[in-house]
């Protein structure tokens, strides 16, 4: 089992279901917010917020992280994200799962040893409600002649 995929192994329209997912704890949420200097009390002060949702940057980072083993684990460079849309809140105690669909792949115009792959990754909670959807592109190396 390899980590990530070579350019040849991506197929437009294929959906990869990532495994495992994970439960986000209140501890995760607090230290993630503080480590990244995000002190919005919505995420770190239960008395202010009533109920603290999981911080958006953690939902985003974890969704990307869970997708790497099946998608960009061989990548040379992650180019960026066209969009990251948060559709529903996630709360500590909820689990997050993800899947990715290959939107497009094309050869690099300048370098024959790689290609550009665009994927859409979707994050779901334990009830299969969609939490986040994001689109990103990265450079995938070719396996080349064996």
């Amino acid at each position, binding site marked *: 089992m390899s980590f990530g995929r070579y350019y040849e192994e991506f197929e437009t329209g294929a959906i990869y279901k990532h495994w495992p997912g994970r439960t986000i704890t209140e501890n995760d949420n607090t230290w993630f917010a503080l*480590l990244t200097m995000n*002190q919005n009390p919505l995420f770190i002060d239960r008395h202010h917020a009533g109920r603290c949702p999981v911080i958006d*940057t953690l939902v985003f980072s974890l969704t990307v992280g869970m997708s790497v083993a099946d998608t960009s684990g061989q990548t040379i460079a992650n180019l960026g*994200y066209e969009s990251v849309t948060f559709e529903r809140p996630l709360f500590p105690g909820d689990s997050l799962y993800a899947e990715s669909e290959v939107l497009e792949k094309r050869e690099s115009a300048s370098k024959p040893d790689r290609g550009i792959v665009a994927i859409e990754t979707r994050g779901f909670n334990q009830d299969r409600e969609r939490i986040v959807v994001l689109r990103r592109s990265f450079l995938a190396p070719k396996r080349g002649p064996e």
Partner: protein
Amino acid sequence: MNWSARVLAPSDLDMGYGSYFEELETGRHFRHWPGRTITEFDDTLFSLMSMNQHPLHIDEHYAAGTQHGRRLVAGPFVISLVIGMSQADIGGRALETLDYSNVRHLGPVFHGDSIYAESTVVMREELPNERGLVIVATRGLNQREETILTLERKIVVPKRPEGETT
């Protein structure tokens, strides 16, 4: 004196972290402070905690054989930190983040680099229920003032509560 009653009194709640809708005028620019140095520990912890096991972030021996010859800081860490740094001026009162768009990694970030950020309000629009929608463009830069990240995000912020000053 009842300490918790005192600190939770409404006049003490306004400590100035983040902005209300009224303060986020279109075109307004903020240079965020402070920045911070990303350490090797930060990046390893962040990568593993977010289940990102790409060896480029966690294996120095592997990374030595790649384009930059050393580990690169995980992209989501750079994005999360740049957004986090902007909160003191912008989203520190935000009720919700709706989306990020046009997120571009424009340069590599290595362990030991310091990251800073600045933002401009791109547009805003009133919403019902004393709230407003704000689109913010944020740029991340390193200690050499090279741009390493640009992104936009759409957030919902409250209007200033009636009677609250400053």
